[in-house]
């Protein structure tokens, strides 16, 4: 199946992602920010699809949009954030933030300008039909050790969260 209007969709989705990102930091209402973040995540999922990575796109939607963002919203609704909406939106560390942002921008620019040499362009070789199998083989084959380490890390994080949140266990 040949892709249709690839360029259009690429710019459309990237535009959505950037727009969502801007909205996240400019909205006063935390729920609106969270919704904008969801928009960004969905747009990124679309970009994954364009890269012939449907599995990653699906996981992105299930985990980030369906799971993590719902928990975000859950917490936002539980914790009274009326006060936060009235506070000054940009605090005194704006200078540090600007410097960090400028540094990041510089990095991106460098990658963009010199990237052609650092990461030579080549066509992705993943066959579309067996994308899931390829991901599985990589995760449970070549990178099994790293994968297990990551899962262990997550387990530790969960236990830590429980210990912090609960007064008595």
């Amino acid at each position: 199946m040949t892709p249709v209007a690839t360029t259009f969709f690429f710019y459309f989705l990237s535009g959505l992602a950037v727009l969502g990102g801007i909205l996240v930091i400019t909205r006063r209402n935390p729920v609106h920010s969270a919704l904008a973040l969801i928009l960004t995540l969905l747009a990124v999922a679309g970009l994954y699809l364009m890269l012939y990575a449907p599995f990653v796109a699906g996981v992105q939607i299930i985990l980030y949009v369906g799971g993590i963002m719902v928990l975000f919203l859950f917490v936002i609704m539980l914790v009274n954030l009326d006060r936060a909406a009235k506070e000054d939106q940009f605090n005194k560390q704006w200078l540090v933030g600007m410097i960090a942002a400028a540094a990041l921008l510089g990095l991106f620019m460098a990658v963009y300008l010199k990237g052609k040499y650092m990461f030579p362009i080549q066509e992705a070789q993943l066959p579309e039909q067996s994308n899931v199998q390829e991901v599985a083989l990589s995760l449970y084959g070549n990178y099994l050790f790293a994968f297990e380490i990551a899962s262990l890390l997550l387990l530790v994080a969960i236990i830590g969260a429980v210990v912090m949140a609960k007064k008595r266990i």
Partner: protein
Amino acid sequence: MTDPTTYLSHLELGQPDKTFLDSNELIINMGPQHPATHGVLRVILKLDGEKVLGTECVIGYLHRGVEKIAEHRTYTMFNPYVDRMDYVAAVSNGLGYCEAVEKILNVQAPPRANYIRVILAELNRLASHMLWLGTHALDIGAMTPLFYTFRDREEILKIFEKYCGARLTTHAFRIGGCQYETYEGFEDDVKKFLDFVPPKIDEYEELLTTNRIWVERTKGVGYISGDDCIALGVTGPVLRASGVKWDIRKAQPYAAYSDFDFEIPIGQNGDTYDRYIVRMEEMRQSLRIIRQAIERIPEGPIMAKIPKVIKPPVGEIYHSIEAPKGELGYFIVSDGSTQPYRVRVRPPSFVNLQALDLMVRGQLVADVIAVIGTLDIVLGEVDR
């Protein structure tokens, strides 16, 4: 409407658990328009998440001043008004009032009238318990029992209609006895009903008693101890489910109750499930009483000799009966005229409702609904 928060200020309420997330308390106004408060009860809840920290009942939305009306009516004219208090057990209200006036007149209703009274009052107890079961089950989420109980309650209402022409606010009795002789076929109708109902009660039990969700929703919910019941003046099935074996029909028999052989079902745990079991068993005991009464009903007059114009001597009287919801008492002060000087109704629902706060503290929102259902209140009687 006043801000709900002002209502709760005086109560010593619990504080929400301080956790990592420092959750806030939530004040919720349940009612007066709410599908599960059985009328116009307004309950203000203070919640920590879903946990109830405290409640306050705001009542009086249905206040009609029944006690004031009584002072401006003659004894006979006031009789129909009492039916409008606990409108699902109108016969019991009428029975209590008529007996109280008879007592202050110092007359006795003839035996046949007493038997008819017992039969109708017990049928009414069945009807009241059926209505309670249907709505209580609906509150907990089981829709179907509601329709089953209404189907069977209909049979009772048909008997009432044939006897006195009214279904709900019956005004079945008169001071001194009964107005009407039983209609032709009354005994057959009642006997048919006695055969018809037991399998239906088994049917309700089949739907609920061993239903896992029902048991989980009711066991251990809304616990109240027998001592607390007595201290709070809670009577009726709620008191009996907490293990206090007390029923005015046995303790101080009125009408013809001393002639019959029946048990007082009691529970041990004082939770919602036990109250359910006690009421189910009470329905069976009511059937037993009706069966004995219909078999032994004596012949004779149905009206005692009372004067045309009722003028009780100066004095006071308190008389109470076991209504389906608990002790229903009438305190009558007579000044020797044709109108009562003061009629005080001791409504069981009103006093029982006071226990709500104790029963739901520390439980969840869903339990508040279950407990309101299990208290079996009728707002017409709470507010009068």
